[in-house]
């Protein structure tokens, strides 16, 4: 009997519709208005890579040890170094990072012994060309410059 009433008046369906109805409250809206509002990103987010520089003397922190390049599963980091005759240390000559092949696994960051290479919270790194995704040392130190669109 109860089953028949349920079937005729579609009570179960109405129960579901009531859930949908309740969701109309504006406090239930969770959509992110992305380009307008930049979303809050986790502190540990693994985004665009950055080669940190020492803020005191604006020299690179990288010691050219090549550990990041060895750790990378995709072999996309190329570190160029030169032995400095005076200080007997390795000087960084170039550093390229091919973002088009990067999967942001963070292994290079883990491998870095001096916290020079770091994956930052920047996530806007689109480029019109493949070549534009191969970042050189300057790009890595300055960070990406996404186009700012204004109305």
């Amino acid at each position: 009997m109860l089953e028949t009433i349920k079937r005729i008046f579609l009570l179960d369906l109405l129960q579901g519709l009531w859930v949908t109805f309740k969701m109309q409250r504006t406090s239930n809206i969770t959509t992110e208005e992305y380009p307008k509002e930049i979303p809050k990103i986790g502190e540990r987010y693994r985004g665009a890579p950055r080669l940190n520089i020492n803020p005191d003397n604006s020299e690179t922190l990288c010691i050219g040890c090549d550990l990041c390049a060895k750790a990378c599963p995709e072999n996309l980091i190329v570190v160029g170094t030169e032995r400095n005759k005076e200080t007997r240390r390795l000087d960084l000559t170039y550093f390229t990072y091919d973002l088009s092949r990067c999967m942001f696994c963070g292994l290079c960051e883990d491998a870095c012994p001096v916290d020079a290479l770091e994956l930052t919270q920047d996530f806007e790194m689109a480029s019109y060309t493949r070549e534009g995704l191969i970042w050189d040392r300057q790009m890595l130190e300055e960070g990406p410059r996404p186009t700012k669109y204004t109305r």
Partner: protein
Amino acid sequence: MATEAWEDSLSGHLHSKFAQAILKTESFRGQPFAETTPSEFHNVVVFLRDDHAFDYLCDLTALDYPKDEARFELVAILYSFTHNRRVRIKTRFPESFHPQSLSDVYLAANWLEREIFDMFGIHFAGHPNLKRILMPDDWQGFPLRKEVNILDMDQSWVQNNLGIESGQ
């Protein structure tokens, strides 16, 4: 491989039933495995299913040892719901040998054998529909054989199609 001997009632049953056909029964890290002659492989699996309730084929896969005469190794990982244990049955055979298909024992073997054929080029005798499953039908070669080198493939592809040196 630093293996230990696998000695319990099950390995005893295998030895007494198949005698010479069981080449070794060993275990590594507590996981038992037995190696059989290729011709008895099918019978051993059927025996384990029928008499010892290994009614679930977890996985069927192969390995390639190109330097050996008996080049391929076929590994069946069996599970028994009643005993809650796993056993691996292996067999080694040369490229010319066609092992008997397990698809009449476990239906799951159908796709798994097709995958092995696709990846290693092992032909299973008695398989109902042995054709490539993951690779395109007109693919040449068998990708998981050791002579296939993905670095060379990548370099030649990048050079031919993009005209640059591959960074790999």
